[in-house]
């Protein structure tokens, strides 16, 4: 993985000193809360319902075991013993004290981490396919470009006060696991007719109040122009994006109002002027950064997959985990393992300091000391050899990290909701818990197959409900929590937005309503058909009848 050189280290340490000064000025009363607000927001520090919340950047979701141990220490020393993995691969702490945040940032800086631009109207953490570098369907590892983009976007003097936040995601694979169509810019590594690699550039996607699927603004962008083209997009957005209404300020609204052709024309016009400037990436830099992402030293004897399968045949509990949480790897005999953070009784994405320490140790023992975070709020050990799979599982199982539910209904995405967030209308974590309780039969979950359930506690849609196969949105009706169901969303290649099923439901009725939706699916599905495909084939009517008729 990328390691800081002197320049990178200097910037994060200077940032800590700067923020320390800003906090001191705030505590001394030299800065009003109004003046402090944009400063702390640029550093990921939100004022939440009960306390400050700090969001720490995990660039493209990649961590070393050393970094994971520091995240554990921070959970222990500055928080109440846990952190929360977000849908953009970051980690949030809910209880830091303002006066301690500079020390916390110093601890992060010592292991090449920071909270720079994890909030505010600027370019946010760059996210990526969580199987980057190990996926069999990958054309090229996108992480060197994520890192180059991270550096270019850090403290960009022109783009630190954009109309609204700006999120960028990369994938180098054929199958999209990074939701690139739902980002302000999504980059896909593609090959052109002459076999050269470059990027397909998708612009103007996003969730929020107005969910929009991004559109291709350029089919092929040579790699050396990555930064200049991005700068052109950002400049057009900075100048012409709406600033009169924060709900219409994202780039998706600009792209939609101009049309993607006209938007693209403005970008090309700007790009022509700067493509040969100092933003023209040098091959030396691409090579320098790429060298940090070469394959680890894979063993020639990773063990026999057939032996793992033999063990699975004799141990049903292992077999379930092996089927759900273990993924193919580009190297024969290696696997990627998802550590589900969706255990019953725990808010989705939460992880304790002890679990983090354990994950760091397991990464060192079994997976070259690397850990990844996913946008579905889980962790991944990316390079585990077959011969160590059983030993790893036994340890995970003993520590509530082997819940075999990845990709099932129970692997839901969920925002922090009313329990923490000042914006939320609804206690999404509580509803998640009641859904876990109702659907606790693993065999039933497996029979249902791949279902993406995504839940948000308000229309800002941090829980991505628009792109859930089943989406749930919490709303407030005269002081009471209600929930709307939507069906048919999809975040990946065949992206679609869900549609409302009908009137909002009382909180207590949500699990039953989900049950009825699933019943219809089970009755109607063709052989091997996923929920989303059945829904697309038969439409909403039967689901609607079942949910609302009896009620």
């Amino acid at each position: 993985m990328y390691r800081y050189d002197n320049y990178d280290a200097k910037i994060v340490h200077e940032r800590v000193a700067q923020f320390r000064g800003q906090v001191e000025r705030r505590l001394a009363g030299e800065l009003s809360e109004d003046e402090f607000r944009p400063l702390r927001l640029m550093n990921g520090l939100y004022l939440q319902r009960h306390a400050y919340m700090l969001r720490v950047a995990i660039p493209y979701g990649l961590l070393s075991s050393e970094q994971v141990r520091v995240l554990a220490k921070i959970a222990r020393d500055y928080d109440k013993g846990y952190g929360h993995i977000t849908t953009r691969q970051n980690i949030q702490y809910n209880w830091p004290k303002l006066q301690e945040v500079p020390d916390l940032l110093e601890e992060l800086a010592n292991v090449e981490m920071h909270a720079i631009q994890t909030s505010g109207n600027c370019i946010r953490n760059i996210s990526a396919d969580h199987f980057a570098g190990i996926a069999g369907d990958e054309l090229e590892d996108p992480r060197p470009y994520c890192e180059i983009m991270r550096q270019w976007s850090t403290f960009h003097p022109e783009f630190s006060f954009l109309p609204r936040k700006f999120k960028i995601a990369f994938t180098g694979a054929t199958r999209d696991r990074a939701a690139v169509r739902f980002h302000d810019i999504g980059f896909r590594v593609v090959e052109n007719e002459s076999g050269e690699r470059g990027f397909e550039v998708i612009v103007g996607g996003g969730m929020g109040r107005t969910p929009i699927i991004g559109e291709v603004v350029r089919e092929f962008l040579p790699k050396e122009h990555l930064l200049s083209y991005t700068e052109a997009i950002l400049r057009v957005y900075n100048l012409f994006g709406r600033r009169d209404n924060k709900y219409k300020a994202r780039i998706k609204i600009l792209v939609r109002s101009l049309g993607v052709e006209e938007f693209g024309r403005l970008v090309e016009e700007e790009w022509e002027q700067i493509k040969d400037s100092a933003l023209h990436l040098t091959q030396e830099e691409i090579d320098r950064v790429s060298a940090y992402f070469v394959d680890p030293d894979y063993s020639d004897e990773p063990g026999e997959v057939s032996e793992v399968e033999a063990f699975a045949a004799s141990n049903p509990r292992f077999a379930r985990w092996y089927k759900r949480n273990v993924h193919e790897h580009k190297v024969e005999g290696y696997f990627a393992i998802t550590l589900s953070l969706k255990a019953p009784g725990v808010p989705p994405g939460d992880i304790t300091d002890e679990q983090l320490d354990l994950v760091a140790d397991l990464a060192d023992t079994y997976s070259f000391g690397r850990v990844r975070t996913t946008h579905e709020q889980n962790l991944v050990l990316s390079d585990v050899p077959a011969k160590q799979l059983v030993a790893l599982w036994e340890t995970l199982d003993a520590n509530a990290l082997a819940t075999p539910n990845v990709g099932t209904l129970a692997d839901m995405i969920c925002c922090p909701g009313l329990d923490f967030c000042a914006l939320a209308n609804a206690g999404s974590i509580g509803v998640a818990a009641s859904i876990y309780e109702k659907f606790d039969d693993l065999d039933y979950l497996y029979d249902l197959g791949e279902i993406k359930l995504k839940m948000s506690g308000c229309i800002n849609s941090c829980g991505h409900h628009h792109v859930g196969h089943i989406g749930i949105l919490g709303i407030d009706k005269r002081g009471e929590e209600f929930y709307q169901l939507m069906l048919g969303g999809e975040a990946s290649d065949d992206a679609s937005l869900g549609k409302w099923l009908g009137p909002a439901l009382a909180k207590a009725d949500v699990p039953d309503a989900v049950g009825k939706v699933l019943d219809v699916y089970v009755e109607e599905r063709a052989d091997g058909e996923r929920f989303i495909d059945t829904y697309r084939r038969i439409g909403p009517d039967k689901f609607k009848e079942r949910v609302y008729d009896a009620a």
Partner: protein
Amino acid sequence: MTQRNVIRNREIVQDDWEYLGAEDAVPQGAKVIVELARWKQERDELLQAAEKVGVLLKGDDDPKELVEDFEVLSAISLDFPKFADGRCYSHARLLRSRHGWKKDLRAHGDILRDQAFFLWRCGIDVLELREDKDPNDALEAFREFSVTYQPAEDTDKAIYHLR
């Protein structure tokens, strides 16, 4: 003539530019800054009456409209009505590198020390710091960072040219 402190090229200096509203009379021999609309209407009168003339550009204005007047203008001021309104950062860069404006480029409005470094990097050399703030504090902002990643108006080198 009122004087105030501004930060010019990273130093605190006295400044006697005046902003005129659409209807304000032009004080003879003064240095005045007017909005683009007034400049377009009263160009010659302004040049005649005032010692020096500058134009205040807003986020919505198109800096290209001034290019033909570069020779007669003595300053361009960019409006930051709110801390969070960042359009004029782009205007500043375009004025400097695209249109070749070489004279004073001023930041006007809600200017705090925490923008100072970004404004400077975008080519703005005169900061009209909000009057309730101590300019000595703001000078420190220029010393907070010793390394930058991207090329901008202060350097044509990206970090990868230095490595």
